[in-house]
């Protein structure tokens, strides 16, 4: 059962590389180029970004002791998009690393604002409301920033930023996103035990020698870094960071901290699958990535809400 995410990943990876088959039927060196320059970075980003969303979602849910916390619902993803857009439109930054840093700064700002609005020990509704407010505000600000940009194609860029896209991303871009994200993720994983102990409450965790305040700052910083770097390259993708941890916890018997690894695997599978769907969509037009994740994520999200209600009812 625990191997399930891994078993899913293998066929998905193969499919993402090989489908659609058409373009690969040509001469060998063209196929090689397509695989290496187009499909490989796309696959790496799908796997990596998906893993980051799952992992940071699990960490944030553990930190907030709340199954609704996630990069999108806390405003971190939208904040990151805003940061990257402002940096590229107003500061004219083009270097992928600088854009990633701007994304991280935006995410950090959003999460800090969340704590300021909702307080440290906020209950679920308060947290959700504050996070949604920040998310919506950041999204609107991003659209505004793009509207004020001179190019009339800014509208389409808004789509990419707010709904996510992996189209035509290069290997250097993938590196710029995934290397910082990997470092931040590795550091987050080292806090798995502390996050598990947080389930006993902040007081007990403190009595066991974990500094809850410091843990909070570290998780927020590392999550912002990982999410920000990815959003700067691929835009903000929703739902994966919410759903993957929930599914992962059903594999870890509810433990939130040790769910980070399975959540990463599940997130990678979800995003790779979603991206595959956008590429194979028979509808003729390209469907933005965020639409597919929403389409898959919404029923799961509703089921989660219903399950919470049933549990609370006697």
């Amino acid at each position: 059962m625990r191997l399930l995410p891994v078993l899913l990943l293998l066929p998905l990876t193969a499919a993402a590389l090989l489908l659609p088959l058409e373009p690969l039927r040509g001469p060998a060196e063209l196929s090689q180029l397509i695989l290496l320059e187009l499909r490989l970075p796309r696959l790496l980003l799908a796997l990596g970004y998906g893993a980051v969303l799952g992992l940071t979602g699990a960490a944030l849910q553990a930190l907030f002791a709340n199954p609704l916390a996630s990069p999108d619902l806390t405003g971190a993803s939208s904040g990151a998009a805003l940061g990257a857009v402002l940096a590229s439109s107003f500061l004219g930054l083009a270097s992928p690393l600088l854009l990633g840093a701007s994304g991280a700064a935006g995410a950090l700002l959003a999460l800090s604002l969340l704590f300021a609005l909702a307080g440290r020990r906020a209950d679920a509704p308060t947290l959700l409301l504050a996070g949604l407010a920040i998310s919506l505000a950041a999204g609107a600000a991003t659209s505004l920033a793009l509207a004020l940009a001179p190019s009339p194609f800014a509208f389409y860029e808004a789509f990419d930023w707010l709904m996510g896209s992996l189209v035509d991303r290069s290997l250097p871009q993938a590196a710029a996103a995934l290397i910082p994200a990997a470092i931040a993720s590795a550091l987050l994983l080292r806090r798995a035990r502390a996050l598990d102990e947080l389930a006993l409450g902040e007081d007990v965790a403190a009595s066991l020698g974990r500094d809850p305040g410091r843990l909070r700052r570290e998780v927020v910083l590392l999550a912002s870094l990982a999410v920000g770097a990815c959003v700067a390259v691929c835009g903000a993708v929703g739902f994966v960071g919410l759903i993957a941890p929930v599914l992962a916890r059903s594999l870890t018997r509810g433990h939130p901290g040790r769910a980070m690894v399975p959540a990463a695997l599940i997130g990678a599978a979800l995003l790779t699958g979603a991206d595959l769907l956008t590429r194979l969509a028979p509808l003729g037009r390209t469907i933005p990535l965020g639409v597919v994740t929403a389409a898959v994520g919404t029923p799961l999200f509703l089921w989660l809400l219903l399950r919470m209600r049933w549990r609370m009812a006697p």
Partner: protein
Amino acid sequence: MTPLLEAEVEVPGRLALTRIVANPGERIAIIGPNGSGKTSLLRALAGIEQAAPRQKPGPSPHGIEPYTRLGPGVRRGTVIDGAELGAATPPQRRRLLAFLPASRDVPWPIPVADLVALGLEQPDPARVATLLDRLDLQPFANRPVDRLSTGERARALLARALAASPKLLLLDEPLSNLDPAWALRILDLVEEEAARGTAVLLSLHDLGLVHRFTRVLVMDKGQLQFDGTPAKLRDSELFGEIFGLEPAGAGWKLRPSADRRSSP
């Protein structure tokens, strides 16, 4: 004997500077009106309220002078069995103390056995099984903790606290939410732990159980007002003043001044 616990703690606004010394095997009840600082004291001893670094070394007499004036060179903190709590790593801390908060909330549907195991440094199924047995939790071993009654959850959390066999137990309201039978059984369990050399400090609401302890600390308005045996407490005026009660048989009754029905 050398004290197991030596601590000097303070929580500005909630707890005046308080010195606590405890020996192995002591069972200490902390009582006081609501808001008197019982929880603050327990938390400060557990090193949760951020106390500044270290602590005044040296032995001291058993017993406390509540209004000790301490000089500028005094440092604050908790020392258990010679080890400064502030400098202890998480694995060391588990062996030194366990803190049980009054809140019974667990936000995740973790099975009881797993919850208890969180108290251990390394997985130890045999130890978990023993604890589940002791607290009659075997039937619930695999049940998610959010599907237990409050009392059952309280026992599960207590089992977690006992898991690593700490030298010091700091329990905040461990007996509330429990059936009377279970309250008494927990007191038996506390005596068993104390017999093994553990020092136990727990806060208590039910004054009728005070006699089961070797020592009582009375808190009021953030200050330690009394530290002595239960018998001494019963006979002292202080108790009556703080609680507005006076002894009546084995229990208590309202003091005339506290009873608004009587004429002054």
